[in-house]
């Protein structure tokens, strides 16, 4: 690469004249700078400002002073914030299991010898391209009208009240809709994983008399283990950011039973808790980094990926 650059520098007449060999052409900086500049202004600077203000008593405007770690100490013992972490992590853990089990089974089905393979795959991927909040509104209607109506028609009493109105069960609705939307992405990755397994492995197992179930558990699962790791971690990370679907289903309710971390942070904007919720956001950031580092250490050097 370097040699080419050097050769170009001496042969091209246009562009920036280069005196030294192996000097980077100026145009490459021009290619890179817009991205770096905008990225820094739009993401890095806000992140630094946010972390800075988390050590102050700012309400988002006007005067402020440093108060050290006061916000952090208060946030860590705040029952509302604790509840949002408990809810979000619990929800993410359950959803990750539901999504991966269902997506894996679907992927096994979709990579086996079946009819209408392409059409079926097309249909199963649709939820990935539908807006989260809109599909949440659709399910909101189904949970609050259709399911209770069905319960009444069938005489099943526990179905007759909307699950969304029940503080103990509303999270299940959020898991269902989130899973509905997250399964396609996970499914496509499992399909890629399953297709990477050479067919002769199964042939050999067939000859040795292994049943289909034994083949699934003893051959397929171990061979896609790397894909499971990826899907679990990326899924979990994504679900921790839950916002759109919850807004459309319960808006954090009933009460604050289903309020996610992201929803709690955002309240800082309207409730004058800017600095306080920035401390919360910083804590959340540290957790996100920790999970990402875990992801890197688990996936590094894996041959399967």
């Amino acid at each position, binding site marked *: 690469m370097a040699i080419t650059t050097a050769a170009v520098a001496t042969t091209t007449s246009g562009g920036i004249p280069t005196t030294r060999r192996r000097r980077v052409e100026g145009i490459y900086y021009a290619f*890179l700078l*817009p991205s770096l500049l905008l990225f820094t202004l739009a993401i890095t600077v806000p992140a630094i400002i946010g972390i800075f203000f988390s050590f102050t008593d700012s309400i988002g405007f006007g005067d402020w002073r440093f108060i050290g770690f006061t916000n952090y100490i208060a946030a860590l013992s705040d029952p509302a914030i604790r509840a949002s972490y408990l809810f979000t992590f619990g929800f993410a853990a359950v959803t990750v299991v539901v999504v991966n089990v269902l997506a894996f089974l679907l992927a096994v089905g979709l990579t086996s010898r*079946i009819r209408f393979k392409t059409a079926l795959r097309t249909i199963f991927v649709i939820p990935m391209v539908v807006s989260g909040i809109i599909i949440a509104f*659709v399910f909101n209607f189904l949970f609050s009208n259709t399911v209770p109506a069905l319960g009444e028609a069938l005489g099943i009493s526990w179905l007759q009240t909307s699950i969304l109105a029940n503080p103990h069960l509303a999270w299940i609705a959020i898991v269902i809709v989130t899973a509905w939307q997250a399964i396609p992405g*996970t499914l*496509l990755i499992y399909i*890629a994983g399953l297709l990477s397994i050479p067919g002769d492995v199964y042939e050999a197992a067939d000859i040795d008399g292994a049943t289909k179930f034994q083949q699934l558990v003893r051959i397929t699962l171990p061979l896609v283990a790397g894909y499971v790791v990826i899907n679990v971690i990326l899924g979990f990370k994504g679900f921790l950011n839950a916002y759109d679907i919850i807004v459309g289903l319960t808006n954090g309710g009933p009460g604050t039973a289903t309020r996610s971390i992201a929803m709690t942070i955002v309240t800082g904007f309207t409730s004058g808790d800017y600095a306080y919720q*920035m401390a919360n956001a*910083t804590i959340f950031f540290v957790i996100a980094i920790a999970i990402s580092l875990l992801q890197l250490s688990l996936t590094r050097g894996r041959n399967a990926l």
Partner: protein
Amino acid sequence: MSTEAAGVLEEIEAKGLLEADSRRPSAVRKDRPSWSTTIILILCTATVLVPLYVTISMAFKSQQQAVDGNAFSFPAPFSLEGFTTAWNLTSFPTAFVISVLVSLASVAGTILLASFASFAIARNWDRRPFRWSFYYLLAAMFLPFPVVALPQIQLTGLVGLDNPAGVALLHIMFQLSFSVLLFTAFLRSIPMELEESSRIDGASTWQTFRYMIFPLLAPMSATVGIFAFLASWNDFMMPSLITSNPALQTLPVVQSIFQTQFSNNYNVSFASYLMAMAPAIVVYLFTQRWVMEGVTQGAVKG
């Protein structure tokens, strides 16, 4: 979808889904397709299709029929009442145009900025500033939007970007890491000899990029562009927080603004939902090859 899908792509080995299918030794394992698996899978599609059916059928009902809230009944008579009411009530044309503009700006901005940056990074990988820039841009993958949401709301307000333009800019920035990852991986697979030949013919770096590299990137640009479109078109959180004027909101946010006004006029609300989500589904149906490849192919390992 956006953050998750973007993340998803980063790790997976490049594997053309569609070709891989045909590569699988088929005749050896089982000779004929299994009907039982096919039927189970067809039954499973109900989980996807029923919510979509309910949306479509409710949207085409008359007000009288829709008000009973029966989700499964067929529209009788077919009525466009819901659409006309939703069209006027939510100022659909305005929201639609804003959604289109934000998405297009996001697609164009993402493809241009990411391909420029990736070209510079891939061709100067032996230089520390470029290598570090790569990791710097990738770091956004580890940064969830909620973490920077509050200062971004504050800053966009200060500099007059608390509008769809600001939303488009932020969409591009959050899409950049994933797109740079895809482009750099692809650029490394383009043989250098190709570029050298154009240089020998006297083309400048800009000309080489413009007339040789950028056209070669087209399939990757398609994937990058479609993901940028879907992320931008479907996003709710960012526009709802950044754009301060409700009259300038994108379609998903408009649905939530009018949610209470729809009340029991389910035909109106579902017609409105349908108009907001149909474009993304149509785009997907025509580009599904790139959508599926993007998820899998993405990760020729950064």
